[in-house]
């Protein structure tokens, strides 16, 4: 099968004019693990980056929140997709254009994955103002998270002013999704008393807002109990980096109306915080730097482990495992090999 040529100018042109096919192909491009594709992707991302800067500059300063990106994290089955479906439709009705990047975990064994999230967002999917793209996490190869950042930018460039990222959140080898977006929402489910203690503090700490989902029918009581628990637990956490912001915990239902009024008014409070624009500007600036660092890390490692020297790489891995060489020594040797160190 011959896919249409991936011509950077065509893609970029289609992209900024909101052509879905171009956006779809662009995301495929930045996700591709092929070297040739990477080269094209870099060209494209350069154009996109410039374009986004341009847009930001033209924006009146009180509108820095335009292009708001948000991660929805939480364990599988808590209702992330369902929540996004409902949230997305409301955003669309408020006049937003919404893009959703749904990252499905891949099977460790086969590498394949079933990308089912989109079918759980059928209401949003049927709206012209929304674009939903499920992506495999590719956890066996790493690297998708870098692409996720690029995909977010592509969506922004294609004119989607709100980008939502659905992901199970921090996996071991992956980059914390909160490092890719403006705002992180953690979804939890109601639990009974004993189970509550078990939730990892680290997961909660990365969140800017916590929601306890499924506060309806049988789930209502447990959700409220859990919400009260976190409310008090969160008050003991170190203060949030955004001055004046105390991470809230709300109970909500993604299939009924409960909690939504509260949710929107909390968001309103947030946007009313005078420090928010600067905080975000700052965060985004930092993210650009960390993006670079991450990409460099990954590029170096990928370059070296997949190039002609794959054998040496595997040998080194096994030397590391068996303790023949220390990690620090190994890095030093590499740098010397590349002529970066004497």
């Amino acid at each position, binding site marked *: 099968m011959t896919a249409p040529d991936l011509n950077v100018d065509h893609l970029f042109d289609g992209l900024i004019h909101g052509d879905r096919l171009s956006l779809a192909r662009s995301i495929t491009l930045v996700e591709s693990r092929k070297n040739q594709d990477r080269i094209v992707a870099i060209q494209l991302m350069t154009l996109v980056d410039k374009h986004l800067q341009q847009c930001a500059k033209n924006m009146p300063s009180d509108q820095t929140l335009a292009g708001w990106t948000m991660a929805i994290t939480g364990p599988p089955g808590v209702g992330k997709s369902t929540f996004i479906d409902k949230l997305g439709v409301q955003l669309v009705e408020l006049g937003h254009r919404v893009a959703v990047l749904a990252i499905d975990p891949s099977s460790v064994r*086969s590498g394949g994955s*079933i*990308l089912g999230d989109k079918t759980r967002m059928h209401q949003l999917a049927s709206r012209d103002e929304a674009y939903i793209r499920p992506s495999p996490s590719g956890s066996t190869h790493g690297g998708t998270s870098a692409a996720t950042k690029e995909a977010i930018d592509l969506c922004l460039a294609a004119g989607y002013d709100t980008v939502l990222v659905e992901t199970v959140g921090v996996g071991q080898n992956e980059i914390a999704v909160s490092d890719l977006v403006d705002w992180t929402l953690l979804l939890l489910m109601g639990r009974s008393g004993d189970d509550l203690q078990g939730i990892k503090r680290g997961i909660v700490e990365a969140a800017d807002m916590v929601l306890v989902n499924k506060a309806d029918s049988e789930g209502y009581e447990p959700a409220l109990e859990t919400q009260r628990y976190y409310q008090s637990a969160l008050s003991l956490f170190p203060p949030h980096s955004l001055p004046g912001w105390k991470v809230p915990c709300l109970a909500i239902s993604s299939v009924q109306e409960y909690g939504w009024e509260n949710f929107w008014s909390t968001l309103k409070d947030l946007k009313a915080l005078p420090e928010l624009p600067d905080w975000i500007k700052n965060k985004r600036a930092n993210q650009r730097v960390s993006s670079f660092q991450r990409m460099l890390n990954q590029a170096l490692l990928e370059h070296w482990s997949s190039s002609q020297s794959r054998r040496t790489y595997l040998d080194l891995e096994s030397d590391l495992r068996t303790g023949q060489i220390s990690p620090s020594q190994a890095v030093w040797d590499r740098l010397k090999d590349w002529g970066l160190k004497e």
Partner: protein
Amino acid sequence: MNPKLSEAFFDHLLSSWEADDFEKNHSLHWLNVLEKECKDTGLTENICYKDKMVSAYISSCVTNPVSVIPLMPSQSATISRTLDSANETNKSDGGGTRWRIGSIIQSNTESLRSSIKEALESGADALSFVGDLVASSEFMPASEGIWWNYLIADIRAWDYEAALGLWEQWGLQAGISPSEIELQGELWGTGSLLIAQNDQEYEESLRESIRKACYSAKRFPMASPVLLSEDSLLDTGLHSWEAVAVILTMAKDWIDHWDKAFPLPPICVERCPGPKFMEEIAMHSVLGRAMKEIGPTDMIVRHWAKPICTAVGHDDGARELLGMTLGVLSSALGGIDTVILPDLQGSLEGISHEDRCRLPRNLQLLLRDEAMLAKSTTLLRGAGTITALEDVAWQSVSEVLVQIQASGGLVSWLKMRQSQTMQTIELAGSSPYLFPWMEVVHARIRQESTASVQGWESGLPPYLRGPYASMYVQRPWTIRQYAGFSTAADSNAFYKRNLAAGQKGLSVAFDLPTHRGYDSDHPRAVADVGKAGVAIDSIEDMKGLFKELPLDQLSVSMTMNGAVVPVLAFFIAAAHESGVSSEKLTGTIQNDILKEFMVRNTYIYPPAYSMQIVAEIFRYCSKQMPKFNSISISGYHMHEAGAPAELELAYTLADGLEYLRYGMQAGLDIDEFAPRLSFFWATGMDFVTEIAKLRAGRLLWSRITREFGAKDPKSMALRTHCQTSGWSLTRQDPYNNITRTCIEALSAVLGGTQSLHTNAFDEAIALPTDYSAKIARDTQLFLQTESGLCRWVDPLGGSLLLEQRTQELVRGALIRIKEIEEAGGMTRAMDSSLPKRRIEEAAAVKQARIDTAVEIIVGVNAYRMPDSAQALDIPLLKVNHEVVLHSQISSLDHLRATRDQDKVRQSLEALAECAHRMKETTDCLAYEQKQESNGFGLMELAIEAALQRATLGEISSALESAFGRYTARPFTLQGVYARQIMNDPQFEAARLAVQAFESSHGRRPRILVAKLGQDGHDRGAKIIAAGFADLGFDVDLGQLFQTPEECAQQAVENDVHWVGVSSLAAGHWTLIPALMQALHDLKADHIRVVLGGVIPPEDYEPLKQAGVQCVFGPGTRLSEAALQILKA
């Protein structure tokens, strides 16, 4: 009050297997119930049920065990009551035996070599040669790479000594010693008897043959010179009990005259069973056991069968296949070790000579490997009916044995017998029965209870042995063929033809748009109008459907769940307008919405409101339609979605429980509506399990309803419809499906179904034609009239194997029911998708087992048709879709133009208003609260709207305005398939191909698995999705009921490489071109389309021409499909 099954209920049923006091008390009244049933049906003269006779017979059995007239003085006088001895003669293989599959080979033809090869490759393990092998060729088995040291070669009509010489020579070349040669000759046999003029000649031939045979007996201990076949005896007009007596006498003569200085060679006895299932089993077993009694203990008896399948003057190939099926089945269960089937003689459309040889072989393979009979040949151990029949069979045989002795010799007896032919036949009342004393047994429809069914009788709780006391003796099951296609007028004509041809009830299949509440002119409907069933848009269509059919006499079953309100309203209104009031209507409406959410997906509204509608219909029917079954609680679709028997039972009964609760909450008394609940099972290929399933279901339901407070025994009786499994049918070698369906139908009958649908053999390819529908119907007529099965109540009851399987199923199902009960009942359990997940997991496991040929499907993963074979040229039904669509749309236009719009609007508003009221009540009333018993009047309003000519679409939208339309959330299981198939080489090959694709394309292959149109059967799609993900694909799932445009949009947004469409409902010719066009419009021609499902073979090429990359039929292995699409 919210009735629940208590912990104690489960504990009790899980731990004990016996009748409780309630049941014991009831079963004492069995004769009264029987008598009442007979009076009710007015068929008293048809049955000798009278107590005196029954009890006289029973007591005679008990007090004087049937005595055997001493034929062989030294042998025991009675035949032991168990079948053990007969079965132990065979090589045992884990509770069963594998009989040898015999094929007939024409020796004197050009193609001798190839036919031998083909027979061996396609599963034969005994060859029976017809004609002279030596004269025909210089055939050398060894040099052909064939050696049959594990085969029995049957050379009956041919010179035994010459054959031994030849075999020895061939054997030497292949290094096989003469002692290993298994050969069956006919140096002496029933033929020798028939040519003897008198008893002296007979004796001379005996002595002469023995003299010859002694020569070779030492050298060839496994070769047999004696073949005692019923074949030629039956030709002379003997009854089979007489033929068996002759065979026994001859065998005895041979053994007595044998020169003891030589080892006794094997003796072969061969029966030619007809279709009388139970009687033939009994006769097989009697012959087998008697043979054991008459010879030395180390004597080898070959126990063969060559079923009679052609009836004089019959040229019907299908009928012949059915006869073969029953013949092989009774032989396998009766302890036969080799079954030889001749080539098919009768006509079947489009078959070749090779097909005629292959089909009978396949038939045996199907029975042995798919129906798993090789594991169940001990099925009859303990079955009371068979034990009784064996007594009668033996009595018949032994009486003849005495006559033979008395007449001084076999030849004299034969002469005498032939002179009396006319008279004897009259004596037997020219009865179709196998034994002269059948009338007595006939009366004895109550079988003596064996330990495992003690205290349980048919027609009484817990109905283990059948919901009626007399079962088919009084009234056979109803032949109810599910049919419907294109327009009401076409279907009406089809129904009339079928009724004229012996069908009893009607069962209407509606098309998918009707199921989903769309009128034929709805944009989402176009592709499916009139395809999988008939299109019904209004009362006018419904009237057309039943035109000139007497609705007050005809029982009508309607498969409708989603759009149940308008369809039932149309039915009632149509009957009303033709002068039949609703209380006269008989039949069934499926109305089983729970299983739609679980597996079949033709729902409309969300579960909670749908359940309110179900309860409304219960209410309406219980008040207005006392003879109408208000629901048919269906396991069929679960079975077809891959649920094993335990799950099918458990979830169907759990659904039943839920309906009981809703009915009771709607204010109905359980005894008011429970008797009108009916069930619907699938019967698949697992013969014993399917029989057990029906029996287990009845037992469980009886106990459950009692636990829920039912007082009336009628509430406790589970009455059921059955349908043979459509899923089990294959596209490959479609005539195999006739046999499959016959086996499945048989298990439904042996399980005691009340009505039955048999699938047409071309179901896996297209909609049934008149031709295939006739064969399907004939299968049931054959079982009713020729198998003799209608004369028995629970004929296999008491069988240790069957009762054990029944108990296992009861327990297995209980565990799952308990799980559902703990989750708060089925409606809630479905929220967590637990039942769905269990079913899909089972389906994925099964698929993997099939793909790795652990489970055999003949013609698909084993014994495939040779590639060279011509595809069968079967005529297929084509509905002219354009015409149907056009005619529906124009009648809709006409309807809308001629009705009173104001009245229509008013009636619809009233309906919508009522629906809103229902919704509010459902939303705010707690689940437990009881409603007023007069309900909401929804049905009444719907009938009014129907009478005003509101359309189906309008009525459903009126309800939809309140309830909304439900969208399912698909999910799929990963890893299940891979775990099963792990080490399969082709699976690995496909995995590697995926990896190669990944490195060259920079990402994994990505496919969107889609279902288009209104077809909700998603088993195939889900298995493909799960399997492909396990192979390493990234798989996107399409929403159910997508339009081609929505699908194309999703494909583009997700940027997939392929769209894989799964189609089961004949919509592909509309939907696929639309999909390609939509992709083209989105500038996405690079996205390829592949298609899988039920696609007629002749469509493959045109579809490929139209740009479809690959087309896959049912039975394609997933890894193979993956390799193919990756290749292009």
